[in-house]
């Protein structure tokens, strides 16, 4: 069983958008990320799936350079992380909303736009349209519902139209209808060349990803399309597949 299936590069395809090589992050004796290696091709949606505490967020923080690896390295768009200038080409939607509750929706977007170097009303209007918050632009964020804040959080990550997007559990608290819209928009972005890494612990979104990476105890225990993983695990259910593959690794260790 190939745990770290490499995409077919053969020198012909485009260079990977995101690379991780032997990435390790230790907190004391805990190895939150334990020897992770992968290449992610541009223009695809990658699903980072795993239970809470499996190391998904730490992995994203390593890829965005928010934390320094104990060993190994990460690269985004050919630049070794951490790299502050490179962050201008990355969008990051954090697990917490990470928006200013005392400001209005539009003020939040203008602020993050200015920080990323995009000014003016057009990017704000564009981002508002994507998350369907145009009619709440003047609302103080503190008065919004949880789902609306989540949408604003996504809009803040998109404001500078980054070619690489990390979304840490983006659809938590978002209603089903809007969830469909979110995924339609993610797809439109990848069609235009954006690379998206989405972390989730809900399996029902997994089939919308081009490829899945199953994370457990800081390692990638399986990688492939939803269909490939079902076949590999011999089950029709991704949740079952995750449990089986996870168990498998425990036994063979």
């Amino acid at each position, binding site marked *: 069983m190939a745990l770290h299936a490499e995409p077919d590069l053969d020198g012909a395809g485009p260079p990977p958008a995101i690379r991780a090589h032997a990435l390790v992050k230790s*907190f004391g004796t805990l190895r*939150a990320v334990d020897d992770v290696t992968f290449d992610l091709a541009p223009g695809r949606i990658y699903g980072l799936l795993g239970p809470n505490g499996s190391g998904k*967020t*730490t992995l994203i923080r390593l890829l*965005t350079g*928010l*934390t*320094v690896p104990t060993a190994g390295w990460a690269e985004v768009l050919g630049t070794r992380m951490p790299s*502050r*200038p490179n*962050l*201008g080409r*990355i969008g*990051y939607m*954090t*697990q*917490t*909303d*990470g*928006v*200013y*509750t*005392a*400001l209005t929706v539009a*003020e939040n977007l*203008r*602020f*993050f736009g*200015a*920080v*990323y*170097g995009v*000014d003016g009303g057009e990017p704000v209007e564009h981002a508002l349209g994507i998350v369907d918050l145009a009619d709440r632009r003047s609302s*103080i964020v503190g008065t919004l519902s949880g789902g609306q804040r989540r949408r604003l959080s996504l809009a*803040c990550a998109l404001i500078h139209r980054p070619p690489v997007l990390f979304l840490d559990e983006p659809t938590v608290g978002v209603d089903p209808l809007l969830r469909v819209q979110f995924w339609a928009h993610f797809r439109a972005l990848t069609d235009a060349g954006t690379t998206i890494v989405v972390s989730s612990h809900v399996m029902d979104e997994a089939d919308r990803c081009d490829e899945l990476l199953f994370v457990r105890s800081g390692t990638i225990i399986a990688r492939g399309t939803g269909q490939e993983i079902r076949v590999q695990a011999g089950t029709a259910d991704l949740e079952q597949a995750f449990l089986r593959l996870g168990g498998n690794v425990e036994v063979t260790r």
Partner: protein
Amino acid sequence: MSRRRIVALFRRVVSEIRRDRPSLALLFIAPIVITGLVTFILRESQAPQVTAVVVNLAGPRGLAVGNALEAALRTDGATVSDVADEAAARAAIGDKAASVGIVLRPAAASGGSLDVTVITNGLDPSGDVGQVSAIQRSVLAAATAATGTAIPAVNHATVYGTPTDDPVTTFAPAIVAFFAYFFVYILTGVSFLRERTGGTLERLMATPVTRGEVVLGYTLGFGLFATIQVAVLLLWALGSLHVGALGPLPAFSIGLGIAASGSPILAFLVVVLLAVGAVSLGIFLSTFARTELQIIQFIPIVLAPQFLLSGVLFPVSSLPSILQPLVAIMPLNYAVDGLRQVFIRGADLGVPALQLDLAVLGIVAAFFATIAALTIRRDVV
């Protein structure tokens, strides 16, 4: 450093505070109310009300002195009566029938002089001091009357400023400096802690913003409000706007009208430098806090020693020598001294003492800004 990003941070901080009414009240109304109250207390404190009971245990000599003393006390506005012995005097004070007891005894040493023992309640030491000095004044007055020769008066002159009866003059600079420091620290500390715990700092650190830009943006944002606060407070402290009687309202004046001889602009510079240091201190200390309560818990550790060791309450010169090295490292001390140099001495930039104060405040601000920038990103899970 990107000017655009710093301006964005500055505008964001300003928008946040502008909407935060309780914080605005804390910044502008609280200092005015408290300085007004302190000034009122210091200026309008009542003269001690003396109700004396006199015990004469020294025979006819004591009687003569006692009568002279009682006459002087009555002239001074005191109520005086005689009691038989010390126990009766103590009982009267205990019952609050009298505020002070005066016991006249033959002196232990020969020569026929008298000992005067003043008995006070003892529960209120500073009130007791007022009682004792009132008696001392009357003893002097009685002696003057008895000998017919005036005891020479002691006159007070000062090198800087003029000796003044207004106790607020030296107190006001200290209060202005302390408030600027205190409120800017609290607001920045809490605000930056929210940035850490609310996830916005994490997000901000995932943008091209540098730590130096964050510290600078915060310093400019909170610096603006500190500047306005200090301007308002200085206007309030130094100004005195007389409002004439209007209908049923009697005439009154707005502002404390504290006399100051130096340039308000220089005073302003001193406080702004102090406030800039307080912004960075707030950012730095928020590193060690997990909750807003912990920001408050730093007050006794960080601010209270500065309050005690910077001449706000106790004169620096009277502090024990073992504490003097600590005084030398308190930023607030330099601001208080700087403001007194400006207010009382009328110092300009050519005065070395003021130069030292400004230099130290500048260095402290730069030092805390640097360590604040270095500690902004704490590697958490």
